[in-house]
């Protein structure tokens, strides 16, 4: 594997492949920074707290069946419904492997969704964050 240009990533939301409507994708894997500094050390001591993983995706909006809006809207958390769903991202098409690892979570949740955003004349893009209610895992070998 060498340096590469990102253009063939696979993005699956609730098992629907929306890759061809994705302009940007970011995988955030981080834990809260808990300060456990004490007297006498002269430095900050850090411990990892609760994880707060997420996938951030910029979609080109598409209202067709099985495309962006039709997939995302039913997943939006409401007062009556808190659906969770799998989210998976790979750098390339193909089975997960050491050079094509899959980053996924089984319990993504969608708390915020703007079906339309943008200025007149602009391409219709929507930025969406999928929080992972479980940690994002890296699978280099596939299921």
């Amino acid at each position, binding site marked *: 594997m060498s340096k590469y240009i990102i253009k063939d990533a696979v993005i699956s939301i609730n098992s629907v492949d929306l890759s*061809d409507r994705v302009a940007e994708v970011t995988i955030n894997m981080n834990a809260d920074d808990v300060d456990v500094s004490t007297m006498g050390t002269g430095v900050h001591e850090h411990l990892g707290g609760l994880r707060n993983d997420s996938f951030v995706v910029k979609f080109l909006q598409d209202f067709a069946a099985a495309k962006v809006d039709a997939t995302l809207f039913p997943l939006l958390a409401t007062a009556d419904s808190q659906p969770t769903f799998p989210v998976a991202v790979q750098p390339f098409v193909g089975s997960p492997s050491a050079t094509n690892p899959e980053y996924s979570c089984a319990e993504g949740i969608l708390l915020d969704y703007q079906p339309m955003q943008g200025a007149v004349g602009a391409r219709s893009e929507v930025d969406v964050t999928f929080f992972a209610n479980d940690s994002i895992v890296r699978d280099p070998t596939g299921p």
Partner: protein
Amino acid sequence: MFDLDVIRPALLANLADLCEEQGLQQSPYMLALPTPPTLQIAGVTEINYDITMQRGGDANFIAVQVFVSMVADVGGQMKLDKMLKSSGSTSVKEAIESDTTLGGIIDDLRVTRSMGHQQFQRPGDNDLVIGSTWIVQIETTG
């Protein structure tokens, strides 16, 4: 898919009524010696590949040109004034956008701008003609 072989005639189909009303000849390709009044699909000015993953989209830009008359002809300039309108039956923008999927062969299109009144020097006889160029943004998949 961005297939110019089918996009050129489809754009001209959108412009057919306007061309008939304004007495414009049509050409799907750039002419060596355009004789006004003429409308031609001048070609691609820019292609931005891979706006989404897995060849999901490209943004393509096409120039449509109109030559209305020799520069000294005031009548031609008046005709061009009407064609530069943003809407109405004489508007090139409105005509091009009359079917924004070109019968389903593209995802979407929009006339983003016109260069306004332009003088062109014809190759060959070096005569000056007046006209304009419209840039059409065409969104395609794969």
